[in-house]
């Protein structure tokens, strides 16, 4: 079968790969009808995360139809339309049972590299490096879903692929970002990044009780889109001094919660950004932390900083003094999707959420390279490219 593969830094090609097979009784094979690009894929394509191998199938945000199940799958049957979370849970370990699905103890079969880098390994993830388990991704007509009963969620009737595909990753990640802020009525939230995850976080913050949400980006079209679809106020960091603007607009307090939805390749302005870029290019640190530093400095005393942008390694000039002295709560995670996906599908079917506008571009699998290029360059105001692998 054809699949969109990583074949080197800044090289995405369509390759012939073997079709997946049921490898265990709890597996399902899903025929992928829609599979989205994700901002975190850019870290792989740009070569900032180790552990990719030539020929790895990309993609971890998808919806499809079950075509085959192993003998121990009880909740699904062929023909079911399902959304599958990007992180794979086993359902049996302490973390899965606590609802911390991305921390699954068991689903990363190659945990040694992460244990060396982070002290412990987290759960496996589709199409996201061999340090992340080496599971083939979803930009292919067929994908193997391990422990399908706990990882694949039936889609309510009457919803399109575009409406539900982001319930796989962007939406639950954004929701979790807001959920970690313990919002109360009257809370003011700032969100860094107006990609699909950031916009999902904005929407979630409002639904979880925030009174005001201020979204930050540099792309005018994304800022307009965010205003139009979520009701957030916006700030362009290339035009205003973000720290000053946030401070003034909140009457000097600062936002009660700051959500970082950008990650390791943050854009920025001025000397600080030049410094970060240089050090990253020289491999002297792995992350560009401009947005995270801003979030910590902007946050009100005793507020919460919630990190959902992807970071991989080490960050320089971390403002620990500000975080400590201002008594900030810092929360962060890769998405615990399984905890939110059923609730989100339910809200989508009740039309409380409709993230389909984020799918600005729709392309066949064969145009994988073109799709990623458009997405990376934000060409034609691209927010998300969705591929349709099964044709």
């Amino acid at each position: 079968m054809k699949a969109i593969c990583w074949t080197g830094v800044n090289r995405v090609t369509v390759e012939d790969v073997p079709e997946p097979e049921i490898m265990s009784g709890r597996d399902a094979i899903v025929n992928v009808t829609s599979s989205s690009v994700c901002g975190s894929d850019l870290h792989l394509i740009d070569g900032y995360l180790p552990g990719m191998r030539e020929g790895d199938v990309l993609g971890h945000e998808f919806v499809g139809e079950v075509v085959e199940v192993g003998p121990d799958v009880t909740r699904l049957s062929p023909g079911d339309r399902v959304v599958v979370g990007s992180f794979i849970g086993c359902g049996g370990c302490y973390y899965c049972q606590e609802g911390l699905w991305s921390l699954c103890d068991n689903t990363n079969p190659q945990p040694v590299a992460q244990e060396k880098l982070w002290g412990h390994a987290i759960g496996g993830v589709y199409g996201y490096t061999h340090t992340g388990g080496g599971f083939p991704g979803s930009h292919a007509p067929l994908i193997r879903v391990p422990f399908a009963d706990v990882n694949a969620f039936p889609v309510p009737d009457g919803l399109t692929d575009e409406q539900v595909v982001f319930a796989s990753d962007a939406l639950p990640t954004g929701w979790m970002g807001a959920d970690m802020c313990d919002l109360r009525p009257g809370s003011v939230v700032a969100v860094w990044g107006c990609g699909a995850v950031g916009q999902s976080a904005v929407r979630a913050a409002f639904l979880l009780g925030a009174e005001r949400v201020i979204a930050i980006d540099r792309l005018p079209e994304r800022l307009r889109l965010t205003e139009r679809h979520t009701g957030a106020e916006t700030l362009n960091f290339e035009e205003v001094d973000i720290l000053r603007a946030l401070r003034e607009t909140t009457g000097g307090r600062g936002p009660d919660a700051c959500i970082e939805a950008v990650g390791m390749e943050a854009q920025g302005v001025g000397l600080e950004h030049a410094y970060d870029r240089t050090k990253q290019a020289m491999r002297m640190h792995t992350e560009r932390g401009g947005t995270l530093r801003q979030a910590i400095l902007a946050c009100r005393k005793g507020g919460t900083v919630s990190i959902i942008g992807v970071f991989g390694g080490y960050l320089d000039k971390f403002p620990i003094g500000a975080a400590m002295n201002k008594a900030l709560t810092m929360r962060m995670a890769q998405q615990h999707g399984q905890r939110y996906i059923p609730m989100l599908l339910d809200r989508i079917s009740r039309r409380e959420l409709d993230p389909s506008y984020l799918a600005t571009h729709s392309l066949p699998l064969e145009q994988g390279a073109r799709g990623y290029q458009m997405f990376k360059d934000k060409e034609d105001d691209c927010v998300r490219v969705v591929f349709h692998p099964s044709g």
Partner: protein
Amino acid sequence: MKAAGFSALGIEATPAHEGDGNTRRMARGLGWFSLGLGVAALAAPRGVSRLAGIDGSASTSTVVRLVGARELVQGAGLLSGRRPSGWVWSRVAGDVLDLSALALATRQATSPLRAGLAGTAVAGITAVDVLTATRTRSNRAVRVERAVTVNRTPAEVYAYYRDFSNLPRFMTHLERVDMLGNGRSHWVAKAPLRHVEWDAEITEEVPDQVIGWRALEHAGVPNAGQVSFAPAPGGRGTEVRVSLTYRPPAGAAGVALARLVGEDPDQQVREDLRHLKQVLECGEVIKVDERVSARGPVQRRATRLLRRRLATGGRP
């Protein structure tokens, strides 16, 4: 943790132990010998080379001085008593060097008789070194300890572990274990180049808490082990601790070789415990489809090279 069964095996749990008393005395003797030879070679390089029947040119003296310096270091190392095995092996390596240097020098020997005697003497010393090295090696036991937390009660984990025929499900190096009754079992391991099997007996057992076992005599790989099960705090299941002691078939060199081919016993026990956890928590050892992309950078280069060679018919 108690290490029951280890002393009965004649292998001690502490890796610092190398060789019996006689072997250690031999190692010390070699230390003094090294020291003496080193001092002589440094103080009178020309005398030493004349004794060996080789000309006393400036370059020869330099070589002899270097040999002397090496002997001093080795002598000090051996007399320090720490890790004698490594030092004795370094002497063996030095002997090989000396023999080849002598062989080269003999071609222009001023006295072939003396050179021949010197060669014989070095060969004799080499034999003593090799003998001592093998002895210090053969008694060296490797001890591995690892722990994992399994989200199941101690009773469940214990019951699963106690049936040794389950072990090959998570210990990839075991082919099968047959329970023979009376606490005895027959183990068959997958080992490179040969088939290893042995009988083992249970040496201690407290239900839901601990199982100890050891290989019976004549085991190809003498080994003993203990696994304990303790409730993890906060109702988080069971802390499983495994402690293994074994005498590797080829001593320290064997362990180094095993590490080189990715068979580090420490990593192996860790992986086995991870697999035990997976089997008990999710009913299986998690697998990933290796066919899709198994091309690391090295394989990629090799494939490209091969492809190019095939395309050009082997011409450069």
